[in-house]
């Protein structure tokens, strides 16, 4: 990677780092609009994070270093993944053949530490949340990996930025149905992994029904700011992945492409907000079926591309 390339990527990196809380704001505004309310100010997520960063942190005596490491490792893992996932332009900071596996496991690492930190508190609530998170995480992982297989076969690459890059436009022409299924699977993965309705309800105050929120109940101050930011970052990363797959841009769109992606991300947030505003959450024991649906979609897509590439 040349210095010149780094210089062109860095401004984009700055925008990408600042963007995630704004997407949360777009979702909140959409939901407020559906409910006939004005909603919080656009910059509220930033204010909240700044406030949390200036606060002190309370640690329970029953916790160990694992509890303190949880939010930091999670955020670090996601930030590392962010260097390999194309967000606005097709460029990435780091990228090498096989990075797709690293990205998947960086997500898993972040989840692992969030879960361990939750278990570390010894609270029955957090244990319950951890068990749900792991169960549902296990079920959305196959969908993600099978989607990656489809992309790899379709683009003949194992480097994420290429797998979701311009060659996909050709793949949409040759194996369109498979791409459609992958987009569907990734949408479900996005909703599940970022704890949105119909899988989880990020707005609820009912601990017994929560998945993600209940695992972070004991975190406070800067730790909680990291968690909120990491959750927003995860939404942006998985959302970008989905957009790159669903709406591939041709090479050489330059600044127009970047602006278009920004717009698309905003629209994606609106769509997620609209889903949250118009349907109820699934009963918890139905969630596995929903996630299995994602695996079936990506499994079918895998079959299609494999047959096509050999046939």
């Amino acid at each position: 990677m040349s210095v010149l390339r780094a210089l062109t990527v860095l401004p984009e990196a700055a925008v990408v780092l600042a963007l995630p809380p704004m997407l949360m704001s777009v979702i909140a505004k959409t939901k407020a609009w559906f409910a006939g309310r004005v909603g919080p100010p656009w910059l509220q997520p930033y204010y909240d994070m700044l406030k949390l960063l200036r606060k002190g942190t309370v640690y329970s005596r029953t916790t160990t270093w694992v509890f303190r490491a949880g939010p930091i490792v999670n955020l670090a893992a996601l930030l590392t993944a962010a260097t390999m996932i194309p967000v606005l332009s097709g460029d990435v900071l780091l990228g090498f053949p096989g990075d797709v596996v690293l990205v998947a496991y960086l997500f898993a690492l972040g989840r692992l530490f969030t879960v361990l930190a939750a278990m570390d508190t010894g609270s029955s609530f957090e244990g319950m949340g951890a068990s749900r998170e792991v169960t549902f995480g296990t079920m959305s992982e196959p969908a993600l990996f099978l989607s990656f297989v489809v992309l790899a076969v379709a683009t003949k690459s194992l480097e994420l930025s290429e797998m979701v890059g311009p060659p996909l436009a050709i793949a949409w022409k040759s194996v369109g149905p498979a791409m459609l299924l992958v987009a569907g699977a990734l949408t479900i993965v996005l909703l599940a992994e970022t704890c949105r309705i119909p899988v989880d309800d990020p707005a609820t105050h009912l601990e017994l029904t929560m998945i993600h929120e209940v695992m972070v109940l004991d975190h406070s101050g800067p730790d909680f700011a990291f968690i909120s930011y990491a959750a927003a970052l995860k939404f942006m990363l998985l959302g970008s992945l989905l957009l790159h797959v669903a709406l591939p841009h041709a090479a050489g769109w330059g600044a127009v492409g970047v602006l278009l992606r920004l717009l698309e991300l905003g629209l994606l947030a609106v769509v997620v907000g609209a889903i949250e505003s118009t349907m109820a959450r699934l009963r918890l024991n139905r969630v596995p079926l929903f996630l299995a649906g994602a695996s079936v979609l990506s499994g079918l897509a895998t079959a299609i591309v494999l047959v096509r590439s050999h046939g």
Partner: protein
Amino acid sequence: MSPSSASAPWLTVRNGQCVDQAAVPSVSSGGFAEHVVSARGRGGRLAQLFGRRTPEGGVMLYAVVAFDHAGVLELCRTPVESRGGEPPAYPCLTAHWPAAQAFEREIAEQYGVHPLGHPWLKPLRYHATDNGAPAPWGAFDSSKPIPGDYPFYRVDGEEVHEVAVGPVHAGVIEPGHFRFQCHGEEVLHLEIALGYERRGAEPLLLHPNAARSALVAETIAGDASVGHALAYCAALEALAGVNISSRAAAIRGIALELERLANHVGDLGALCTDIGFLPASAFLGRLRGEFLSLTLDVCGSRFGRNLLRPGGVRFDIESELAAALRARVAGLQKEVQQVLDMMFAQSSVLARFEGTGVLSHEQAEDLGLVGPAARACGCRRDVRCDHPLGIFRFSHIPVSVETTGDVYARAVVRWLEVQRSLEFLLEQLGAKPEGRIFQPPGALRPNALGVGLAETWRGEAMYVAFTDDAGRLSFVKAKDPSIHNWFGLAQALRGMAISDFPLCNKSFNLSYAGHDL
């Protein structure tokens, strides 16, 4: 079947009636349980079971059994005394009639009376007995917090885990402690420990100024102020022998149904909040406020405080106001209909409601459930219809019944009741009878006992008021419907997923304060 047979000693009274205390037949404490339980075989429902300390130091137990289809209540009593240094005891009812469980625990906790053979003998509200004698489970120790010292039912096993919720909750709700025995996500058993809001309300009802004690009745369960005031006024008016005017009765009915509408609409919205269904949650939340505002315009209080007093009501609804209210109710009827049609047509909503928190008809009968929770299990009971008083004698509201006993059924019963209350309001606001809205109640009949019932939006509230030989109130027993229904909630959770608890809880929406008194 005839409710009262000639051979059995029972006294029949009706809602809003008063009788001499001496006329209540007394049975021996040994045969009390058998006697009361026999009323169940005749189709009775245990409406109230309470104790009263006698001047001699003993305890007099009173049982009130309701025969809803005949529209009557039957009373009997038994003296329980301590003999030979033994604590006072009698064979319990609960073993044969589970509906008595909370009442017998209450009596044991208040007076240290032992209900022998009670299968679930634990503190109900966690306080000392009135004379400091030890309760059956031991003397009261205020140094230990309730969840720490409560003998919770426990399930053992390798993968069984316990989840404790409350008494401080994440939402703005009343305090109560919930202890779940879980196997994974499945709830094997839920135990509910209340008592955090015990204010000792019943003695406060004895204030010599009837208007002051009506204030207390209104605050026993603040969201059912009108319902409680209505039952209290019925008992007091029975003792005073006063007949309120039809105009006052109509205004009371309007206030009661406005209260029901506000709460039912709010509950349906809260059910939607719990399942994350935003549009209905937001709109129903607003509509609840609209109904509260209607009550505000009638009496200056969103919760109908200070409207009902023994002898009538304090605020009139003039024809101009009635016309304005009627127009607003008609507008709200359309809006409510729209939102609820949308909500009940949403498959993702129905998928969450159906089959969640199921109670069978048998369970509901055994536990003696009341109100919408009972009607959702197919129990056809509604005080407005079974024991009508005031306006409900002339304007009949059909009873809304569902049969599936799940969250869906409890939601549908509320929906139906909303529709019927709206129709009632439109009718009553259209043309009201004339008459003075208030007449001072006058002296109470001495040595008497008056009974008042009302169908609050949660179910049957009941007041039994006693007078002494000077015609002063000497004892009042208040009952909020919640005391019947809390155990129903615990039973409904068995075998359910723990993540469905908030939804089940909301579908019952019981009063903590009303239970704790």
